[in-house]
């Protein structure tokens, strides 16, 4: 049986990748996906703990997170579409109408 630490470390790595994606990528859609990755990393952590603790509520929580992530993705995509309609670009670098 794979020890729970391994899942946790994997989740942490995924989370870190997500973070890097958010910080480094310029395309709004990819950033959005990176955020989803972070959410899923958190989810994975939850499931790992749930498995280790033999606790079903963890899994319920994970489902909840999936649902929320879906909603978030929907809203996020809508916003990206809104941006695209205004700017014809989804490049985050160009979103500097407001600063300082």
């Amino acid at each position, binding site marked *: 049986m794979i020890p729970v630490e391994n899942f946790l470390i994997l989740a942490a790595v995924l989370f870190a990748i997500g973070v890097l994606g*958010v910080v480094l990528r310029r395309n709004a859609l990819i950033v959005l996906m990176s955020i989803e990755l972070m959410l899923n990393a958190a989810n994975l952590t939850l499931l790992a703990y749930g498995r280790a603790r033999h606790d079903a509520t963890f899994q319920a929580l994970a489902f909840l997170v999936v649902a929320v992530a879906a909603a978030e993705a929907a809203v996020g995509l809508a916003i990206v579409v809104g941006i695209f309609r205004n700017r014809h670009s989804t490049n985050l670098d160009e979103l500097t109408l407001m600063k300082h």
Partner: protein
Amino acid sequence: MSFDLAELTLSLPLLVVAVGGVLVLLLEAFSGRTASRAWLAVLTLAILGLATALEIPAWEAAATPRAIYGGMIAVDRFSIFLSVTIFVGAGLSTLLAGGFLREHRFEFGEFYALILLGTAGMMILVQANDLVTIFLGIEIMSLAVYVLTGSWRRSAKSSEAAMKYFLVGSFASAILLYGIALVYGTSGTTNLLEIGKSAVVTTDPVFLIGTFLILGGLAFKVAAVPFHMWAPDAYEGAPTPVTAFMAAAVKAAGFGVLVRILVTAFGRPSLTFGAGGWASIAAALAILTMTLGNVAALRQDNIKRMLAYSSVAHAGYLLVGIVAMGRVGDEARGPILYYLLAYSLTTVGSFGVIAWFGSHGDERQHIDDWAGLGARHPAAALAMTVLLLSLGGIPLTAGFFGKLYLFKVALMKPGLVPLVIIAVANSLISIFYYLRVVTAMYFREVGRATSPLRSRGVTAALILATVGTLALGLLPGWAIDLATQATILTK
């Protein structure tokens, strides 16, 4: 887990708001395309009014704090006080929105539905007694507000604001969620009370990291420095009634959940005190937040953006209250509650004046546009002056009592005197930029011609906010009494 109907009655206000939100959404779907949506605003106000009215019996019922729904939701006066504060913010924003949306031609009924749904999320948030509920509340609230921020579709600023808010917000949500996962994993429970009682937690660094991630996520919601950078952009870009809603209600909800989680889940001394305890972290955040918020606001020529930074600074003052709560104890919650109420009223009012001032898609946010307002629209200028003075903490306004009450509690521990002095120094800086607006309105010659929007709703909102600000400043006794009664949390 049993389902008790009696418990349902305790969350009637929440149900009213949530169902009301859905109702408005449906009604919007069935109403004509070009028809006026003013009646939806009225309906929204009615729903909020009903919810407020329902809070009155709830206040009595919450005399003995307890948790319901298997411990997921707390029933206490703390949450009721905050809920009403949120209603005030939401109600006034709705009043503003009616005229604003019509004037700038993006009138659509979902707006009100989203306000109601966001409000519902906030209500969940301030009552949440469980990490899961917190996450849910935050997401419900945030998603609604993201959409509201981007609701002015023709405005490039609006969609840019929504994008930024959304990206940073969901990033913070992810961090929060990760923190929740870690805390849950190490303590084995999501219930705040049980986390607070859990024996193992303080010895486990993973748990501690989890707590800090949660704190980071919440610090984002209250826009504490350095988690604040989204706020100026989002506040500036969002339609002004939405900005008002964010500044007032989102902040109240954020602080509500922060207070609860710190006290119930992380309230034990080993987590509170010491160099790494949250009281110290909050103190550092408070200093950073106040100072940076105020200093950045100094240089803003866009009044709306200036108020956004001022809102950041006010989060800093509130963090002083959080520190005091760590050091002094439960007493410090009274001032936090009072401050949130006072600040909500004032900030909605001041953003309201900004909303009132623009017309025909032109928001007139530059300070030069405000020159000579005192001569043209004395009443509005007077209202703005009162509200700004309240934000600056000049006596006989709500903001003054808020600060006074807050600093009083902080001073009860001698160690916090420097923090209070920093806060006071910051008030001084803030007065400079608040007075800049007053100066422009009264002392400068009339600038560009203005045609502010005409709406009874907006007028009513401004009158209510201004009168409320003065009332809280002149006779704050009743509000302070209520806030004092509301300090007890479900434990």
